[in-house]
């Protein structure tokens, strides 16, 4: 049976299929390509954020096939019809909202990615430089390279500038 939370996103050339029930929060998609896969945004998939080739490369790395893709020319009639009905919406489920049932007592997981950002998962608060509370999230990534264009969060700039963990 088709899950009503499933979504499809297209750029006219390829279509990406999102099946939240298969997601295990490996976070590969937004660690690799935050320009396209960003759980902090709605819709959380922006097909204009990178080339089809790059999107395909990252979707292929999804360990559970929660994300899959097809060339639009290979879509079945049903899939073509449902693209228009199931594209991104404001109330869609993302890898971030999926964790909402987790216990509050569980420690927040802070993972230092090699040559990359800090990935945070769990129940936490973010306080900005002026003491203001920033949007509370279940999952986010903080910049560690010092050059993000959307501080304090990662925007993928670390790859462009060749940031490394090498000290000095």
């Amino acid at each position: 049976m088709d899950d009503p939370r499933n979504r499809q996103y297209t750029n006219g050339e390829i279509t990406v299929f999102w099946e939240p029930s298969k997601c295990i929060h490996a976070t590969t998609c937004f660690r690799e390509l935050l320009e396209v896969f960003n759980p902090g945004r709605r819709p959380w998939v922006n097909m204009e954020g990178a080339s089809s080739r790059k999107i395909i490369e990252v979707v292929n790395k999804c360990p559970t096939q929660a994300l899959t893709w097809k060339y639009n020319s290979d879509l079945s009639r049903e899939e073509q019809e449902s693209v228009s009905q199931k594209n991104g919406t404001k109330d869609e489920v993302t890898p971030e909202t999926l964790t909402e049932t987790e216990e509050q007592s569980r420690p927040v997981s802070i993972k230092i990615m090699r040559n990359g950002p800090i990935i945070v998962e769990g129940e936490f608060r973010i306080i900005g430089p002026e003491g203001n509370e920033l949007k509370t999230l279940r999952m986010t990534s903080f910049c560690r390279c010092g050059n993000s264009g959307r501080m304090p969060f990662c925007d993928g700039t670390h790859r462009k500038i060749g940031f490394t963990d090498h000290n000095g």
Partner: protein
Amino acid sequence: MRLQQAQFRILKDGPLEVTGNFVILDARGEEIEKEGPVYLCRCGGSRNKPFCDDTHKTGNFSG
């Protein structure tokens, strides 16, 4: 005593202060630290990554 909810404080032009109930893991999933407060480098220049060593004060990091 139950630890408080984890909190991330963005220090102006400085590191990320982490307090509360958390665990920090390296890229291989091994635990590095779980007791706060911890200060994580945000400027990219620390010689003690992922922790802050005050290098941000010598450069022109803003954010």
